[in-house]
């Protein structure tokens, strides 16, 4: 009986001794899963309470952005391209000799390009501004600017552009591009400027 008690005691001690190292090593191992198990359900609860705010938004946000970019780019590319073309169309003036309103060969080349583009873009309506240099009287230059714009319009119409799409206006010598008083400035100011008013 004493042996049995001793054995049990010994066993207990042994077990107790054996348990100690087990306890010292194992507890984190044993405890971590329990902690995880305890925390997981807690997290699930939290997620149910405030769904997607912490985790979803950045994720869905990123994908949304990508989608929208892809969707718009096709239309915008066309729009951007048209804007570029309009910019190019408007950037190029044609020029005239002093007191003249006939289309010079260099101006004809530019007008041909413009007509081509206008025929490709039948929705576009334009305004042609006729301008003069400062020499001569204001009234004569108003009349001259109108003739210049009219020459440019007729040239485009002869190349097939619908006259209904082209408006003209004369600014005479009232809106110089270069305000200086020399031949270089005058040559720049004797011009037709083109503006897209509808597209």
């Amino acid at each position, binding site marked *: 009986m004493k042996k049995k008690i001793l054995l049990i005691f010994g066993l207990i001690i042994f077990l107790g001794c054996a348990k100690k190292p087990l306890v010292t090593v194992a507890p984190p191992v044993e405890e971590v899963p329990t902690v995880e198990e305890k925390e997981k359900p807690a997290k699930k609860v939290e997620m149910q309470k405030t769904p997607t705010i912490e985790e979803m938004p950045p994720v869905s946000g990123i994908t949304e952005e990508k989608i929208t970019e892809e969707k718009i780019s096709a239309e915008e590319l066309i729009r951007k391209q048209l804007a570029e073309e309009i910019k190019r169309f408007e950037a190029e003036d044609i020029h005239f000799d002093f*007191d003249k309103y006939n289309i010079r060969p260099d101006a004809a080349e530019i007008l041909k390009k413009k007509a081509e583009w206008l025929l490709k873009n039948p929705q576009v309506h334009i305004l042609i501004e006729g301008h003069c240099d400062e*020499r*001569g*009287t*204001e*009234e*004569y230059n*108003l*009349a*001259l600017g*109108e*003739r210049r714009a*009219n020459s440019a319009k*007729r040239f485009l119409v002869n190349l097939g552009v619908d006259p209904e799409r082209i408006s003209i*206006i*004369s*600014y005479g010598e*009232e809106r110089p591009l270069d305000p200086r008083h020399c031949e270089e400035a005058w040559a720049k100011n004797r011009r037709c400027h083109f503006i897209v008013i509808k597209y």
Partner: protein
Amino acid sequence: MVKRKYLISFFFLFFSNLCFARVYIDIEAPGQEKIPIAISYFVGERKIALEARTILQKDLEYTGFFEILKPETFLEEKPTLEVDFKKWQLIGAYLLIKGQIKILEKDLEIKLYLYDVYKGIKLLGKRYEGKINFLRYMIHRFSDAIIEILTGKPSIFQTKIAFVYEEKNTKEIYITDFDGYNFYPLTRFKNICLSPRWHPKGNKLLFTSYKKGRPEVYLLDLKKPEVIRLIHYPGLNISPAWSPDGEYIAVTLTKAGYQGIYLTDNKGKVIKCLVRSKGINVSPTFSPDGKKIAFVSDRSGSPQIYILDIASGKIRRLTFEGNYNTSPAWSPKGNYIAYSGMRDGHFHIFVIKSDGSEIKQLTYDEANHESPSWSPDGHFIAFSQNGKIYILRMADGCKFPVLPKLPGRQTQPNWSPYLR
């Protein structure tokens, strides 16, 4: 025989009247000697009396008709209304002006007299009463009365000049007295306004404006005052001109791609097309009898002045010298047309007889002289020279700046009719 006597006496009367009118100043005779005139110091409150005398002296200097005697030579000791003709004969005066100024309760009373020193007679006596700040205008009236007595017609002292004034990229219509006083804007469109044109009665002005984005003709009523958008057909609506009776307007319009000069009624409704061609037709000006129009066209390949006979529709070319002639202005008497023409790279003011003979160049400076406009008496031409308005005296070619201190560019002067 009796008939003949009548004829002779009639002739004598007529001739003597003519002589009287021409005793003093014959406007038509070039290089006439200047008449020595003394302007005595005026009686009355010293400061205003001196100011009044200065205004009168400047007015008389403008005309170029007078040699104004220096006050240092005067033999009178102090201002008086009494006239001792001998004292004035001795210093060589032919004419004498005396005056008195009184400050009444609110107003100013001015009495002014013109004497013929040699005949010893009073030619003119006038009394004016008005607010103190209208002193200039009372003096201007007397100046005009003097010139009317001496030449048969008033001078420019009660006239104004409308012009285009450029400031901060806008052009507005302004108005000034002939001598640069009392200038102010008529429009505040903050846009481009051009080509002011006085109605022959002086109560209205036509002008061109981009107020609605393109050039259209507006009518400004100075009396009301109000602005009406008068002529606004599609295309150009520019360079309006009144007929001498103020009933019609000639204006450049574009119709179906052609530029033409059209006649409208005074409401702007087109009556008929006067001139139309492929090229440019602009800047009409009526002859004083209203039967003809001078205008600018490039039908010969360069801008030249043409004359249209309205009844027959016949057009003849007026200018053949130079390859850029523009901006015609028909003289009040009808015998001349002033215009701006390019010579050696600069624009100058010329006059040409309306039959095309006798061209005279009036300006010579190396500058651009543009937009001539006649004074109603035909003795002066206003024009713009490199952004300043000048007036030129036809008799001797003397040139005066009108608004030398106004900083912005001044262009397109248009001289009013008599505003009396």
